[in-house]
Structures are given as structure tokens and as C-alpha cells.
């Protein structure tokens, strides 16, 4: 990051620009619009699985790229606050952020957009249109393809845990059905923890039913463990540790608590299913 000499008008704030030439200060309406755009970009990132540093840098860069001198960003686990500054004027706004899933393509597109804004290639109207387009961009893989891919991934895990081919098949079916249930519950806006318990219960019950019907093997515990792996909060946990390491301690702790609760929810769903089969150990 290149930080040039502070401008004469506002010695406290570090000013960032490619050319080093002094910018003319922005008026309050313009600043308000820039703050809104920056927060929208940050919100999209947070709701789709980005870590805090990426959110902070993006929110600041959108502001400085559109003509602000500097932006101070506070990232919380469920909100973003930013003050964008131009000359002696500044504007501050809070944006609440809700929980979401993981969408790597969206993160990629926002990252690309931010680079273009930093190069000065977009004005505010273009940025608004781009953000709108990105937020409505359909997923690359439709839900049935996702169901099959996730089922296959969990089945692959059963092979990694040295399961046999029968266990592979049982895991494939159970995990795919659990993924379908999870999608349905998410669409109906159920509480996400409840959705996890229900999906784990469904996966476990699928394994249980197949087990009772066919007595398929002694690897029933393995099939149970593998078929709920789709619910493991991998991204929240990796983000939690990354946030903790990089000094976003409170966000990291909050994300860690969420991850721990999700793991407990999975265990609860599994436990109920295991009681149904009548086995006590995986």
C-alpha cells in the first residue's frame, strides 16, 4: 500500500491516491452515496463467507477508489460500520449483516470489481449497477447438481475413513438426501441450527433405515459420521481462526462460537438417530 504525504487541509488523515495529486473534496451527498456503495460491497462479502480483513480492505478501497481520502472500517460479526472521509467532511453509517452461506464466485466478482474501482475505471452509477448484477448472479451449479456433488463428496470421505463400497453407497444416498433437506429448510427460512439438527437427523435416519432393512455391514458408525460431513462448518471455522490471528478477536470468537454450536447441533441430530438404531458408539 502506498501512502503519500498527508494533504495540507487535513494533516491527521493519511491520504491514498495513485497519482499523489490533491483531490478536490467531495460534497456530503456524494460521500453518502459512496458510503452506501462501500457498505453494500462489504455486506455481500460477509454474507457469502469472506473473512474480516477482506471485508475491511474492500469497504475502504471502494471509498478511496471513488474519491475519498480515507475510510475507517469497523467489522463486527453481524454489522459493518464505516466512516469515509474527504477533506474536512465525513460520513458514517452502520449496515446490519445477516448470516448466509458460502459463495466463492461472488467473493471473486467483488474482488475483481474492487480492483477495477481502485484503477479508477468505474464511476458511482457503474459500481451500483455492477453490485446489483453481482448480487443477482445465479449460482453456477443448480441444486440437483449440488445435491449429487455433495453426496459424492461425503461418500468419498467414507472411502478415506477406510469404508467399503456398500458404506460408500449408503453414505452417498444419505448425504444427498440430507443436502436436499438442508436446501428445503434454508428456503423456508428455518433457524440455521434447527436446520442442521434436522438434516443430521435425516442423514442418520437414512443410514438407520438402510441398516435395519439390509444389515449392510458393521461399518454403520462410519456411514453415520461420513453422511453428516456436509454440515460441518468448515468456512466459518477457518474464518474464525484467521480473524483471531489477524486481530479481529471479537469477530473470531463469535464465529468460533457459531461453529461450535453447529458441531453440537450435528452431534445432537446424530445422537437421536443412533438411539433409533440402538448403537452407542461410532
Amino acid at each position, binding site marked *: 500500500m502506498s*501512502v503519500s504525504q498527508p494533504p495540507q487541509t487535513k494533516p491527521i488523515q493519511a491520504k491514498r491516491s495513485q497519482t499523489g495529486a490533491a483531490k478536490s473534496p467531495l460534497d456530503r451527498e456524494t460521500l453518502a452515496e459512496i458510503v452506501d456503495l462501500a457498505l453494500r460491497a462489504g455486506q455481500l462479502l460477509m454474507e457469502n463467507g469472506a473473512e474480516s480483513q477482506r471485508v475491511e480492505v474492500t469497504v475502504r478501497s471502494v471509498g478511496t477508489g471513488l474519491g475519498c481520502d480515507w475510510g475507517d472500517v469497523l467489522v463486527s460479526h453481524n454489522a459493518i460500520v464505516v466512516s469515509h472521509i474527504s477533506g474536512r467532511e465525513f460520513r458514517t453509517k452502520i449496515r446490519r449483516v445477516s448470516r448466509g452461506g458460502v459463495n466463492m464466485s461472488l467473493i471473486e466478482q467483488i474482488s475483481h470489481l474492487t480492483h477495477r474501482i481502485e484503477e479508477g475505471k468505474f464511476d458511482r452509477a457503474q459500481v451500483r449497477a455492477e453490485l446489483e448484477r453481482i448480487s443477482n448472479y445465479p449460482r453456477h451449479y443448480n441444486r440437483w447438481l449440488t445435491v449429487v456433488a455433495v453426496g459424492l463428496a461425503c461418500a468419498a*470421505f467414507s472411502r478415506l475413513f477406510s469404508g467399503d463400497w456398500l458404506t460408500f453407497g449408503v453414505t452417498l444416498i444419505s448425504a444427498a438426501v440430507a443436502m436436499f433437506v438442508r436446501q428445503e429448510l434454508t428456503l423456508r427460512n428455518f433457524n440455521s441450527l434447527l436446520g442442521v439438527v434436522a438434516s443430521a437427523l435425516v442423514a442418520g435416519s437414512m443410514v438407520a433405515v438402510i441398516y435395519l432393512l439390509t444389515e449392510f455391514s458393521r461399518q454403520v458408525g462410519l456411514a453415520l459420521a461420513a453422511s453428516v460431513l456436509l454440515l460441518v462448518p*468448515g*468456512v466459518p471455522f*477457518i474464518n474464525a481462526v484467521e480473524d483471531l490471528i489477524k486481530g479481529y478477536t471479537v469477530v473470531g470468537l463469535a464465529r468460533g462460537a457459531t461453529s461450535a454450536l453447529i458441531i453440537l447441533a450435528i452431534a445432537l441430530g446424530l445422537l437421536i438417530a443412533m438411539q433409533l438404531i440402538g448403537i452407542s458408539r461410532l
Partner: protein
Amino acid sequence: MSIAVGLLLEQTLWAGVAALGFAVLFNVPVRTLLACALSGAIAYAVRTILVETNLLTVEAATLLAATAVSFLGVIFGRRWRVPALIFVVPGVIPLVPGALAFRTMIDILMLTANPVNVSDTLLAAVAVNSIKTLLIVGALAGGVAVPSLLLRRHRPMT
């Protein structure tokens, strides 16, 4: 070397499939899909080789494998002009100690099933496995953070 090469290859393949499935779940760009699978396969192969040749414990091997895959992600990211995390997150998925974590969790819940006469073996299993799970998962996430700590440094803000 004591490891069976055939088994290693088969496991590597399955690790790639697991990474691929999660890459679809995470909606990675289509053009990066195979590289995500490759990342997962490499991560798992690195860890398995390090553990099976008795060079490192599974925790240390996980840290090394996650770090390696994260640097690979940086290279892939430059090649496809996308953020590195697109390759790194699906890539470390095969390293997640899923079976161990759930066995531990169920054992913890089982501890309360018979509180008067808790079995020593169960108690020991819970203690050892929960520490092991935490260490592996921590090593995994820590390894992911290494490249950005080394490559993306910022001077303190004033």
C-alpha cells in the same frame, strides 16, 4: 518406504472427489473446479506421506499440508486471476478430521448416559480425542492463514 503406493493413489483420488464436491457446494467459478480438486488431492497426499513415513505426527503434518496448499492456492490464484481462497478452502476440506470429531462428540454425550459409573477408557478416549481434534483443526486453519500473513503485510494505520 512402508506405504502402499496403490492405496495412497486411491485415497488421493477420493480426497480430490471430496474437494470437488465441496467446491460445487461453495459455488466456485467453473474454470477453477479442477484446480480445486487438485488442491484437495495434493493436501491429502502430502499429509498421508508425511504421516505414513513417520516423519511427523498427524497434527504437524496437517499444518504443513495446509500451508503447502495455501501457497499453491496463491500460485493458482495468480494463474486464474481469482482470490487464493477459492482453491484453499475446498483444498483443505479433505484434511478435516470429521470421523474423529464426531466420535469424540458422541463419546462426550455418552459420558452423561451413565454418570454414576463412568468408564475410565471412555473418559481417556474423550480427553485424548478432543485434544487431538482441536489440534488438527487448529493446525489446518492456522496453515491456511500463513501465506496471507507472510505476503500481505500492511504498515500500521495512523
